[in-house]
């Protein structure tokens, strides 16, 4: 008899311990499936986007995520939404060097633009890669003391008592019981729809538009190891993401006040490394670098041309460091900039599906 009771207890404990935060999800419920609108060039050139099995895209989930993304209720004092630091007009980044949280405190890194995140195959997000999924990334700003400075229990309570949200969560996930897992799942679904793939260069690649001689020379500068050699980190016409989503020290500083990737891993070999950002939509995403130190594209190009400084972890792809860089001619600089601007996707900025629904 005692053995049976012990067995039952162990069984019950096992079942209980297998429960995770997802026990809130109604596994019987299926929302309306929603396929991502994958640009033709992406489908032709690169692997499919990463969509977690436990968070499939749905019409209702994306709509809920969009509403949440633009809702200031996620912050402790109802003054700041995700969009407050990730504005659609700025390709979902912040035109300020450092975003300012609800307590008036500025951060220390420039807000990252948000697009094509589902194609980040190594799934390391933020400048330092500290989050291993889009869902996990969405957890952080809500509780960050210098951002939304809230608690997830408070967010859940706020949304639970709202007149609309319980129904929207039921439509998206089959339950009215709101928690951080479902909030971040919904936001992640919305973020995965933020796809930018219709720039002038995309249309050129699809044979629908021509580049000017200046833009074509700029592409050559970009791809030429003897000149820009930008492609080893920022991709090439066969990789329309225009980033490797890998971490590099690109010669900004001799010493580091921000350890970047190394601050996460603790590995001194990674001190001062930050994730390569995409070159798409640069015209909207100023200022540049992890700390927003450069206000213009010209300053960025000047950095790689003449401004590199040595540090122990500088990436081997940084050339002629002792001379400050690759010494581009003024014409090549201008053409490189012209090419970079062909990666501008106006439709992404204007897409009505990405605007504030509230």
């Amino acid at each position, binding site marked *: 008899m005692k053995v049976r009771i012990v067995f039952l207890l162990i069984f019950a404990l096992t079942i209980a311990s297998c429960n995770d935060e997802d026990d809130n999800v109604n596994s019987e419920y299926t929302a309306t499936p929603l396929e991502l609108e994958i640009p033709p060039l992406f489908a032709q050139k690169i692997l499919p986007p990463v969509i977690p099995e436990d968070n499939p895209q749905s019409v209702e989930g994306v709509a809920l995520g969009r509403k949440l993304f633009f809702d200031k209720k996620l912050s402790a004092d109802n003054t700041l939404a995700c969009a407050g630091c990730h504005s659609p007009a700025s390709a979902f980044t912040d035109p300020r060097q450092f975003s300012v949280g609800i307590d008036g405190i500025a951060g220390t890194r420039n807000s990252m633009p948000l697009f094509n995140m589902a194609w980040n195959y190594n799934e390391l997000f933020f400048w330092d890669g500290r989050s291993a999924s889009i869902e996990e990334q969405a957890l952080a700003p809500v509780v960050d003391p210098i951002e939304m400075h809230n608690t997830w229990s408070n967010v859940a309570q706020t949304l639970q008592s709202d007149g609309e949200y319980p129904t929207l969560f039921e439509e998206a996930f089959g339950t009215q019981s709101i928690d951080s897992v479902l909030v971040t799942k919904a936001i992640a679904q919305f973020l995965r729809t933020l796809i930018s793939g219709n720039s002038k260069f995309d249309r050129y690649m699809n044979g629908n538009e021509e580049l000017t001689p200046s833009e074509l020379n700029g592409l*050559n500068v970009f791809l030429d190891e003897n000149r820009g050699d930008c492609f080893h980190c920022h*991709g090439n*016409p066969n990789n329309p993401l225009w980033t490797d989503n890998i971490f590099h020290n690109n010669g900004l500083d001799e010493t580091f006040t921000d350890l970047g990737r190394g601050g996460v891993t603790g590995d001194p070999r990674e001190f001062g490394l930050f994730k390569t950002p995409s070159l798409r939509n640069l015209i909207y995403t100023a200022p540049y670098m992890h700390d927003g130190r450069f206000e213009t594209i010209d300053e960025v190009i000047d950095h790689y041309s003449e401004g590199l400084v040595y540090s122990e972890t500088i990436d*081997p792809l940084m050339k002629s460091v002792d001379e400050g860089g690759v010494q581009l001619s003024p014409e090549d600089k201008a053409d490189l900039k012209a090419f970079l601007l062909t990666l501008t996707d106006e439709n992404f900025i204007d897409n009505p599906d990405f605007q504030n629904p509230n």
Partner: protein
Amino acid sequence: MRKIALLLATSFLLFACNNDDDTPQPVPNTTVEFTFSHNWDGDAIENSDFDFLQYFNANGDQMSISKLVYLISDVTFESLATGETLDAGDYNLVNVREGTNLSFTPDIEIPEGDYLVSFTFGFDDEDNQDGIYLDLNSADGGWNVPMMLGGGYHYMRLEGKFIDNTATETNYAYHAIRAADPSTTPITLQDTSFEVSLGQITIGSSTSIEIEMNVAEWFKNPNQWDLNVLNTMLMPNFDAQVLMFENGSTFSNSTGVFSLGTVTQ
């Protein structure tokens, strides 16, 4: 009565299970695993070895390795019994620092037996078509070679730092590709991939073949590599690519970049 029926049925099954020893048995098919290990003149290279200026190349340059990613393709099995050549036609991108794809099983089943086994470092011209491999386009920010250099794909990205003649820590990027001279019209291309023969190997039901790379050999034989002269911007350097090809493909006195390691059955 039931017992008789049961005995009959059992007998029938036993007979059915009997092998007919008079007919030759087909040779079972199997897959073959390849593993990849890396060393510097015999010292194993692990993740913890990256980024440390601990190596000295044949030229005497003190150097480190920050990155070592390379492509192999066309693992080929030539049967000693039939002379037939079997090749899955697939490829494997090894990332040593990240420890990814250090094991690779070509997508082909071959009959057990004795084979001459070989593979290609990089892609030969037949396979080195621009932009056609979606996984390689997606790897490492794009494993591609720009069209201005003939397109196709990198064979290897070996990067790090060395102490140059002025005692300055300097970057190098030893990137191997198909040799290209863009100064000519049309562009001059030369296939600098090469076949690596692993010799005769008996393939059984669970054979695993270790391929060893001695990174020091890239800088050694027959061309003693001077990083002070050839460090970066090597992709558009036709002659440098040929030198890399020569150092990679030379195998003499039982030494070379690639060699056969342990074979387990």
